[in-house]
């Protein structure tokens, strides 16, 4: 793949393949992820974009029978995230994730955001208070949540819950943040708020986002990758992909002739 930019790499997939048991779900993917940029993954459903995303925090390790081939190099330390010597928990400590549907834990708003810090052994009240506030501000939900920190997170609206989940992921300062169709369960207004947030967040963190919505990809991302049937068809700057795609299949998808 051609490098478009002088921007440093945060991660790079090299000959990445993935198997659910016998079924090959990802086929030999090569792709760079640039530091402090938003990279969008688009493609028809079942194309493997979520499977690809979930490889970055080794989510597939939770289920038996899954297998990776190839590498995901993580920079600046040039670690292979998929190496059997690297513990998946270590990977997840560096790579945060926001899911398709908001999944707040059955705890208070405060404890939801503090969760990752507690996992990392942080129990100092002052430190926790500081970081929770910082994360909630970062996820643009501080004003709505500051007076109800001890309320159950499930009392929040869907859009607020999703921003809370983003705050939860931000609280531990991840180096890479994965978004798996984060707005598919939300209404247009909440979606707008999340998109704005993503735009804001790239100053702090590298973002990889799966979306089923091409307008969303066009709005929020700097780079876009089009996937189809487990293959990476085309990767490039978002403007270029949307204005003049190189591959016929990308063009068909973007112009709505397929998918």
């Amino acid at each position, binding site marked *: 793949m051609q490098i478009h930019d002088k921007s440093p790499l945060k991660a790079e997939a090299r000959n990445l393949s993935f198997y659910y048991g016998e079924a090959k779900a990802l086929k030999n993917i090569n792709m760079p992820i640039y530091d402090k940029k938003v990279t969008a993954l688009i493609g028809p459903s079942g194309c493997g974009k979520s499977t690809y995303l979930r490889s970055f925090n080794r989510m597939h390790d*939770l289920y038996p029978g899954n297998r990776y081939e190839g590498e995901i190099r993580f920079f600046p330390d040039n670690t292979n995230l998929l190496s059997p010597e690297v513990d998946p928990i270590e990977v997840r400590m560096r790579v945060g994730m926001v*899911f398709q549907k908001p*999944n707040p834990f059955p705890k208070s708003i405060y404890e939801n955001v503090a969760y990752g810090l507690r996992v*990392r052994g942080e129990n100092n009240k002052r430190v926790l208070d500081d970081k929770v506030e910082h994360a909630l501000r970062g996820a643009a939900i501080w004003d709505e949540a500051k007076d109800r920190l001890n309320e*159950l997170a499930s009392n929040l609206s869907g859009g607020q819950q999703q921003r809370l989940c983003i705050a939860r992921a931000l609280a*531990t300062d991840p180096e890479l943040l994965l978004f798996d169709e984060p707005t598919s369960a939300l209404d247009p207004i909440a979606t707008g708020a999340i998109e704005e947030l993503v735009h804001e967040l790239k100053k702090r963190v590298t973002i990889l986002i799966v979306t089923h919505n091409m307008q969303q990809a066009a709005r929020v991302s700097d780079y876009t990758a089009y996937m189809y049937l487990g293959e990476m068809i085309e990767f490039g700057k978002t403007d270029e992909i949307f204005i003049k795609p190189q591959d016929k299949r990308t063009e068909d998808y973007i112009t709505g002739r397929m998918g």
Partner: protein
Amino acid sequence: MNHAMSANNTSDLHVVSDRLSRNAMRNISERVIEALLFAAAAVSVLTTIGIVYVLVSESVQFFQHVSIIDFLTDTQWTPLFDDAHFGIMVLISGTLVSSLVALIVAIPMGTIIAIYLSEFAGSKVREVAKPILELLGGIPTIVFGYFALLMVTPLLQKILPGLPGFSLLSAGLVMGIMIVPYIASLSEDAMRAVPMSLREGSYAMGSTRLYTAIHVVVPAAFSGLAASYILAISRAVGETMILAVAAGMQPNLTANPMEPAATITSFIVQVALGDLPHGSIGYQTIFAAGLTLIMITLMFNILGQWLRRRFRENY
């Protein structure tokens, strides 16, 4: 076509009315069947009414002889003596102490097994473990009584030399083992019903299996766990044969599990084994005891519901 039909008008009418009357018959028989099925379903309600009626009506007669105050405050239970005392606290103490011992065994063990099966074990382990638990839950309580008296008590006596041949401790321990499968299977169901997305959320934060289980899955399944604990309490309080066999049947107001004591249930068995004339005060006593038993079970159920609601709000 039309012509042919009107030509056969009379016989057509016949056919139609015939079919209608058959339909009517069919309707009636459908109704009758529905009524019969409803009656079968109503048997459960009748059972409850019957239980309440029997317990209350006999107890009312009982309380014409014994004042409720004495019943609740007397510290002796000697209903069949000439100098009869009816202090139900004596029996309640045996019931509560043995139940407590049972729950101390059953709740941790059942919960640990449930967490292990739901969060740690592979499908193969589960396929073996679940039938084993089911078999354990299927063992008749009289056999558990035998186990408590003839196997567990001698074993415990080696560790605790002062332990008498009958004790609430050994009966309670075995009762705990008996209850484990109920807690394990109900709690496991509750935990497996927790959506995978919650677990993934926790794992994605870098947490381990145990941390996820304790901090996310258990709180999410809490109402199911509480339900299983309440059922366990009902089982323990209502358990009869293990206590009748292994805890001795002498009334004893005690909080010490190392002592023998009668419980509400073992008292009923003891009286029923003898030959009490219908309508005598002794006969009525067992219904008053039964009513107390039901009230205790009910109380724990209400307490459980309340706890469940409180816990949910404070999270």
